[in-house]
């Protein structure tokens, strides 16, 4: 396994956890308006994907629990803190918040709340590259949860991507609950992975609590798509270690599930794995923790000091063009 890939992935996991812990505190202190949605417990899956993509070449459409993947892909922390804290200097300028952010021209579209909708969107970004003759070596990827697999948009999108045989990777993090709804009220098939075959996608299962397994399996799925093997689906099993959002205590998650192997913390696992595999040392990881805590602090402080949107100076136009000298 590529040492730098695993180290990149792990560092993104660590940074995302530190950032999200801070966001949670800010929310609880009333400093963030709207929701805060954490990827706690899903960092390994998300970062394994983000770290296997190349910003400037690939496309990554993150979803609600992809802080680690965003960080691994190269989204600066300040984009996150500015969006959560409503800085007008952020990528969404206060017009959208929290995880609904992106930089489409950098290959990272901004998610809408409607699940499954980013699957065909990424497919279309890849189609554009194909039509322009620059698809070679490019991969597009998006993440969804178990709940999104029940949507028509997901089905239509995955099917379309398969029909076009696009170099796309769809990562399904089955975290057992879609908000509060458990798997047995969400789908009736034995394993979501079975759907990959039904759609005509390559299928890969992985233990989402095991970072090295995520690196191996997701890295391989991305390599397959990049190498021309067509679209791939990864289904990761894990447990969401937070509520749906920070407003939700997740009390509907049974205690025995929390105590099961699904409920293991991928970051704690990752620390042990990094040291055991010789990818890092205790000292290095501690140094990263200190460095990233400072980075998080700085990104929060900067965003907090920045101007918020001014409704009197807001450009209240939903279309870019004017017709007859008037906004549409």
């Amino acid at each position: 396994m590529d040492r730098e890939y695993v180290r990149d992935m792990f560092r993104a996991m660590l940074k995302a956890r530190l950032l999200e812990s801070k966001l949670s505190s800010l929310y609880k202190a009333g400093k963030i308006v709207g929701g805060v949605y954490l990827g706690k417990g899903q960092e390994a899956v998300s970062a394994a994907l983000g770290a296997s993509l190349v910003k400037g070449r690939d496309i990554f459409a993150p979803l609600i629990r992809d802080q680690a993947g965003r960080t691994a892909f190269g989204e600066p922390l300040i984009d996150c803190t500015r969006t959560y804290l409503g800085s007008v200097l952020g990528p969404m300028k206060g017009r959208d918040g929290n995880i609904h952010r992106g930089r489409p021209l950098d290959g990272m579209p901004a998610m809408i709340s409607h699940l499954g909708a980013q699957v065909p969107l990424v497919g279309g970004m890849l189609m554009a590259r194909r039509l322009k003759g620059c698809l070679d070596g490019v991969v597009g990827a998006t993440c969804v949860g178990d709940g999104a697999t029940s949507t028509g948009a997901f089905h239509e999108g995955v099917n379309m991507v398969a029909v076009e045989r696009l170099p796309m990777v769809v990562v399904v993090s089955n975290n057992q609950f879609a908000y509060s709804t458990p798997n047995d009220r969400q789908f009736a098939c034995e394993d979501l992975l079975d759907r990959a075959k039904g759609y005509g996608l390559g299928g890969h299962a992985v233990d989402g609590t095991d970072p090295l397994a995520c690196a191996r399996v997701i890295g391989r799925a991305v390599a397959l798509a990049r190498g021309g093997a067509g679209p791939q689906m990864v289904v990761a099993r894990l447990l969401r270690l937070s509520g749906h959002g920070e407003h939700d205590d997740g009390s509907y998650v049974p205690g025995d599930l929390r105590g099961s192997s699904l409920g293991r913390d991928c970051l704690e696992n990752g620390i042990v794995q990094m040291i055991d595999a010789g990818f890092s040392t205790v000292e290095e990881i501690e140094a990263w923790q200190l460095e990233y805590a400072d980075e998080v602090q700085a990104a929060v402080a900067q965003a907090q000091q920045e101007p918020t949107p001014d409704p009197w100076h807001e450009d209240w136009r939903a279309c870019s063009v004017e017709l007859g000298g008037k906004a549409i």
Partner: protein
Amino acid sequence: MSVTYVDAIREAQETLLREDPRVFLYGQDISKFGGAFKATKGLAEAFPGRVLDSPISEDAMIGMAVGAAIEGMRPIVEMQFADFSSVAFNQIVNQAATHYYRTGVPVPLTVRLPSGGTPGSGPFHSQSMEAIYAHYPGLVVVTPATVADAYHMLIDAVAMDDPVVYCEHKFLYRWLKAPRINGDGLPIGKARITRPGKHATVVAYSAMVHEAVRAAERLRDEGGWEIEVVDLRSVKPLDMDTVLASVSRTGRLLALGEAFPWGGVTAEVVARVCAEGFHLLDAPPRRLNSRDTPVPYHPKLWAAHRPTPESICIALRELLSF
């Protein structure tokens, strides 16, 4: 030789494909088959790889096109029928329409909606969806009523950086002909005085422009009435300058549309005229729309469901006699 409305749509797409490498077409049965209405006939052969058949997945079709537009392409998506765009509603109003405001990146997407009723097409192949889409910020909605507009407004729609919902009327496809594709150079956002008059204004769009003209001719023959017909051309934006100027000349307004009567374009026109030009009105403004049921299948029911020259004349006589 003459050019039909659907010929003009095909011609426009051929021109666009020929002149702009960013343009591609995506839709059901549009490739070798040439589309359910033959609006893309021969284009797949002429432009290999740029006229693509989609699966029956309206949501994914628009999602795909938005993604391609973000990447700099100019996709034209053909919905086989406007009615089926309800399946793509989410991608149109939440993904495409919000994108510029949210991210600053415009989405130059054109969605062609074969709209409106034809005899026998029934509840699910006859709908007029323009008001639904016009409701959402971030979308431009056009409703060409002439052969020349069918051509030029499609060219203009694709040239726009924002998503355009292009509502083409199926009833006009082959019935409406012109000797050639002329144009008067009106841009999207400008209405046209189709027929000048001084006694009442009918504001219409799409196929209803022609029904309004027929009604106007009858009333001229019947009593010498001079009815002005305004073709909105685009329902978003609404050219209120032209509408208000017309109402100022006539003092009377009938807003005419084929869509369902609750809300919609005619309600918007009447509301705006009342708010912005109440003093211009000599009579209460009227609206005439389809009946408030799904569009019926049987030609006899269908013909009585939508406004007809007869029902338009009745509405106008009441308006004129106030």
